[in-house]
């Protein structure tokens, strides 16, 4: 018991792993849990409990054989690991924003008390950054290159210039929607302060919003975009690629969706499959503790103050 608690001291917090494509995110969470359990159970086991027993024994006494009790210390086999089973059978590991099977990228997991931080992160409505690769000339039913082919078109007329124009239009419409959903009156001092700190974003559930979109590479038929968004799903991003193709009077499918940033966790913080062990995860948790705390305070602190100011103005209005 004490050994288990000691082993789990460093394991309370958030860390990020790199999810490979083709694997379900639940499988990733389960394999991390299994690996951690295996390591924790194989750590130093305490010595098996001893128990003082009084066992009868025949000794040569004065009048022939006598029955007496001798004191011996025997191990308590009920506490033996082969009888009791492994010390830890379950670890509380929660998953942050999930990735679907075909996509890859930064996947935040929480251990132990860190699961509470996961809820806070969800409520803070952080943005996420993706790199999305697309392919012109095809259209499929599920907007990705492994789906059933529906249409094939030409794409010779597509240039980088046209693509960037479309991207600017998308960014503009999404920005307007962002401001509308944020419920901020742009003419106030509070809005100015938030804009200075780049915290203007909706603090409640909204449809998917793209905060920024730009083209990284353009080599027809392939192209790569970087998208910063919130409240999105990977399928929505594939749909965006499909719609870009339609806007350009051609068709496009999405070949790769890769998350490069989730809140304050970037690709550098994410642990690869070969590095999933106890030591690395402990280090990762320790490194990201301060960052997560600062970010959460920024977002949630402002949210609290905004809420307070709204109630204050309401009271003032009522009293008048």
């Amino acid at each position, binding site marked *: 018991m004490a050994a288990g608690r000691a082993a789990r001291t460093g394991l309370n917090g958030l860390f990020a792993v*790199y999810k*490979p*494509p*083709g*694997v379900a995110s639940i499988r990733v969470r389960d394999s991390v849990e299994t690996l951690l359990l295996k390591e924790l159970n194989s750590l130093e086991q305490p010595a098996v409990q001893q128990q003082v027993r009084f*066992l*009868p*024994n*025949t000794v040569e006494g004065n009048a022939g054989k006598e*029955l*007496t*009790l001798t004191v*011996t210390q*025997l191990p*308590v*086999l*009920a506490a*033996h690991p*082969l*009888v*009791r*089973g*492994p010390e830890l059978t379950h670890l509380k590991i929660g998953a942050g924003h999930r990735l679907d099977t075909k996509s*890859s990228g930064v996947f935040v997991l929480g251990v132990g008390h860190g699961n509470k931080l996961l809820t806070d992160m969800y409520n803070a409505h952080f943005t996420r950054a993706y790199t999305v690769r697309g392919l012109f000339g095809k259209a499929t039913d599920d907007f990705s290159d492994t789906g059933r082919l529906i249409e094939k078109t030409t794409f010779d007329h597509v240039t980088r210039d046209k693509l960037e124009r479309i991207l600017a239009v998308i960014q503009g419409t999404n920005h307007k929607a962002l401001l509308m959903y944020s419920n901020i009156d742009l003419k106030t001092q509070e809005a100015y302060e938030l804009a200075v700190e780049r915290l203007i974003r909706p603090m409640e559930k909204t449809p998917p919003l793209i905060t920024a979109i730009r083209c990284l590479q353009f080599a027809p038929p392939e192209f790569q975009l970087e998208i910063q968004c919130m409240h999105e799903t990977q399928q929505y991003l594939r749909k965006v690629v499909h719609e870009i193709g339609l806007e350009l009077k051609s068709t496009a499918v999405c070949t790769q969706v*890769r998350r490069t940033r989730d809140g304050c966790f970037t*690709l550098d913080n*994410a642990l*690869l499959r*070969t590095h999933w062990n106890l030591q690395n995860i402990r280090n990762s948790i320790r490194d990201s503790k301060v960052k997560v705390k600062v970010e959460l305070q920024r977002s949630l602190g402002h949210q609290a103050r905004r809420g307070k100011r709204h109630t204050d103005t309401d009271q003032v209005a009522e009293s008048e």
Partner: protein
Amino acid sequence: MAFWARQISIWYLSVKTNSVANSIQQLRKTHRTWMQLHELSVLSFLCTDNHFPQHGLKTYRSVSLGSRLQSTNSNNGQILSEETNLLSPVNHYQQQAEVIPSSDTKTLYEVWEDTPPSSALEEISEEEAVQIVAEPPLPLGSFTLQDYVDRSETLSQLVLLGVDLSKVEKRPNAGQLLLRLDFEKDIRKRLLFLKDVGVEDNQLGPILTQNPYILAVDMEALETRVAYLKSKKFGKEAVARMVSRAPFLLSFSVERLDNRLGFFQKELGLSVQKTRDLVVSLPRLLTGSLEPIKENWQVCQVELGFRRNEMQHIVSKIPKILTANKRKLIETFDYLHNVMGIPHHILTNFPQVFNSKLLRVKERHMFLTFLGRAQYDPAQPSYISLDKLVSMPDEVFCTEIAKASVKDFEKFLKTL
């Protein structure tokens, strides 16, 4: 049994001499032990004969007559007994009481009712004092063997041997079986038999963990099965290896083993020697179900398109392919053949690729394509053999095959 015999002889004596006073005193003694018995019988229901672990001390026949009940009352040797069974030992005793010559039963019972109950302040001899056991009672029903392991010699010896009781108790009825067995009588014979077959000492624990039911198999059956295997010209080390790696092997009857061997010979079309090698390298084939093996064989021939002799070569080298997951096998083959462009004959030469995880193969192949070194045709220069692709660890792969650093490989993996 000695104690019981003593009891009956005491009653017989009291009946024969027909002196009431004498019999009262005897009955007082027996009644006292009877009361103790009554208390302990419902509590120590499941003690085996050998009450304490040996540990170099003499075994002690304790006062708890539950052990006698255990041996005499063969119907009620269940851990998870119903409420009704709790009363049966006492009933059994009353039935036994009726076995006593009926001529003086009436006098016996009359005398019995007159004796006062024993008091705790009664003086008893030193020997009896030493013999009183004051341990907490064993639970009547439990879902784990932890509660019984300290008091049962069988279980303690098994733990010292290396059997993982936490896994054994999860198997259906295995815990009950182990508690009912006696180490000296049943288990020791079978362990010595396994050692004769050639199994190592450190393997005995894992074998019993996987297959505790082997302790319930008859000795003659075990001997027949080993004799059968030897008659099929499996060497001694081969038999030992097969028994260690497939613990359920000796629980199979001779006909079943015969059927299995015949199936492998006919269906796979292998020679006798090759079938023997196949079975020795993967003895699990004999104990598992045959349906997935038949399916995999068909899949390999029809879907994957391997010829019969190619299949035989692959199966002799990597028997695991017969028990592999069908869907994963097809996915791996699909990637190897269609995406990486490897023809059938090269795959036949390196069947280890089917053993490895698809994700690993994918990552390494994509890295090599990125570097421009993905060349799997032996005729071309800078050829990379498939077994080196999958079997090597990451550092060796990066430095020797890909001629890049491990850091580059990791950076590339993060772009996938």
